[in-house]
């Protein structure tokens, strides 16, 4: 009897026991991931008096909130596309351009470090180098007579924040693209060369179309990486730059929107954008798996 039930995978008794093995995980995920998110969701449909309302989502279109989303999206998109392009070129350089192997090992290791070196220390390093009293800013001013702040550069602005974000953005691209570039088969290049294709034709017609889903997918990952970033931006600008994460932080400190529900709706707006990005990423990942690996 016992032996025969053990062979049937889906008897109801076994299923209930088997489920129990995952119970701690599901409980944990519920308590610290799903329930907090759900609580924000419920809160976003309540007004200050606790009555049901959709007003909070309509209020997301007020100028200051719309600008915050727009700035966050722009910073994330610019650092994803430019950082992604530069990361791709670097990954290309160490995988395809015939550089010695130690360059690749060194660069990949360094990228692993840099993609994790973020937050407060990164912001401080950039302030130290490119802030108003930074090493480079001062050196340029005193030695070369060029005051970059007079010329319109400001570390505590869109350009400065983007420049800082690049530090963890393009290493991530290198880390993901290097294996993808390794996946290009030598036969493809040889076959195209046999048919008379130039190197440019090979890249334009074969390699780039094959790599495109993973390039775009990784850029989406970079977008999400920057979009959710709080610590770096906060440490760099002290909260003066109007990003969504900074606004949510200010709202948590002291209800600056004078409406808790609106704060929850802002947080959910972030989740919606990140969810859309991740969905796109998963879809592109499926396409790229057809060719690579």
């Amino acid at each position, binding site marked *: 009897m016992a032996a025969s039930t053990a062979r049937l995978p889906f008897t109801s008794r076994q299923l209930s026991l*088997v489920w129990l*093995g*995952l119970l*701690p*995980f599901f409980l*944990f995920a519920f308590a*610290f*991931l*799903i*329930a*907090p*998110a759900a*609580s924000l969701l419920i*809160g976003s449909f309540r007004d200050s008096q606790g009555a049901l309302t959709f007003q909070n989502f309509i209020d997301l279109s007020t100028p200051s909130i719309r600008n915050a989303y727009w700035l966050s999206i722009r910073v994330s998109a610019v650092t994803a596309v430019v950082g992604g392009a*530069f990361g791709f070129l*670097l990954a*290309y*350089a160490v995988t*395809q351009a015939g*550089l010695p192997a130690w360059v690749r090992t060194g*660069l990949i290791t*360094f990228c*692993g*470090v840099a*993609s*994790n*070196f*973020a937050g*407060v*220390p*990164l912001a*401080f*390093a950039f302030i*130290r*180098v*490119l802030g108003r009293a*930074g*090493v480079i800013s001062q050196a340029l001013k005193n030695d070369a007579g060029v005051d970059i702040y007079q010329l319109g550069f400001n570390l505590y602005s869109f350009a400065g924040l983007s420049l800082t*974000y690049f530090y*963890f953005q393009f290493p991530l691209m290198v*880390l*993901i693209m290097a*294996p993808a570039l390794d996946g290009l088969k030598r036969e493809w290049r040889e076959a195209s060369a046999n048919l008379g294709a130039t190197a440019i034709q090979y890249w334009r017609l074969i390699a780039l179309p094959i790599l495109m889903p993973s390039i775009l997918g990784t850029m989406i990952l970079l977008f*999400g*990486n*920057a979009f*959710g*970033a*709080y*610590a770096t931006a*906060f*440490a760099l600008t002290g909260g003066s730059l109007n990003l969504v*994460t900074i606004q*949510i*932080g200010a709202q*948590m400190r002291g209800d600056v929107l004078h409406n808790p529900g609106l*704060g929850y709706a802002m947080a959910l707006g972030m*989740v919606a954008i*990140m969810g859309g990005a*991740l969905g796109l990423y998963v879809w592109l990942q499926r396409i790229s798996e057809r060719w690579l690996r």
Partner: protein
Amino acid sequence: MKKRASLWGWFWVLLGVVYFLVPLVGTFTFSLEMKRDVLSFASYQAVFADPDFARTFLFSNQMALLTIIGSLALFVPTAYWVHLKVPHLRPVVEFITLMPFVIPAIVLVFGMIKLYKNPVTIGSLTLIQAPTNSVLGTNMLLVAGYIVLAMPYMYRAVDTGLRAMDVRSLTEAAQSLGANWFTIIVRVILPNLRAALLSGALLTFAIVVGELTLANFLDRPAFGPYLWLLGQHRAYEPAALSIISFSLTWAAMGMIFLVSRGRGGQGQVAGAH
């Protein structure tokens, strides 16, 4: 043709190296200039002499250790069970482990505070007093939040490690020798996962020790908030601490590289930015 490509390759690598190194070198040289007219490690001595540094750094390391232990205790049995017994639930579990990608740290801590600043109740029955009112409760929330942040990387590290071995045969062999579930996981599965788990643990360490967002809003005396506060009214010590943080990240990543040598660099991507 080949030669030109190589030249471009060098050009891009050089550009990358310059961009990588300039902030580090600039910060490092600045950190040596605390004493007028001489280069010295005075700023580093000042940092190490500060009792707040020792206190917050110890606290963050404790939190990192608890996070690593907690995520191992949670994810190893879960991933093992999914492999062995409930493969049809794999999509559900994987979906949950990817959710932290969609919920940024600031949103996570927002939701946690909203939920746990009140007592946990079912109807009129109070299960737990408001967790944010006690030190223990807030520390537990912090560690739980860190486990959530580390979840995508940690779970994947364990999952990849399990894929690389024959879980079913190992389990059956252990069972036929009379091992119980605890023995199987601790003495058969864990030793085979050593490299994968070490990478995951080091990565978690790198994320947690300097983390600002959760520690700041849960108001914990951690290293990240200390570093930020120091930066508001000092010049040389924060530079020294940035270099120390970087060296720590470097050490963690270097060890991951040694542990997972020759298995590609994809597993080491994370970060609490």
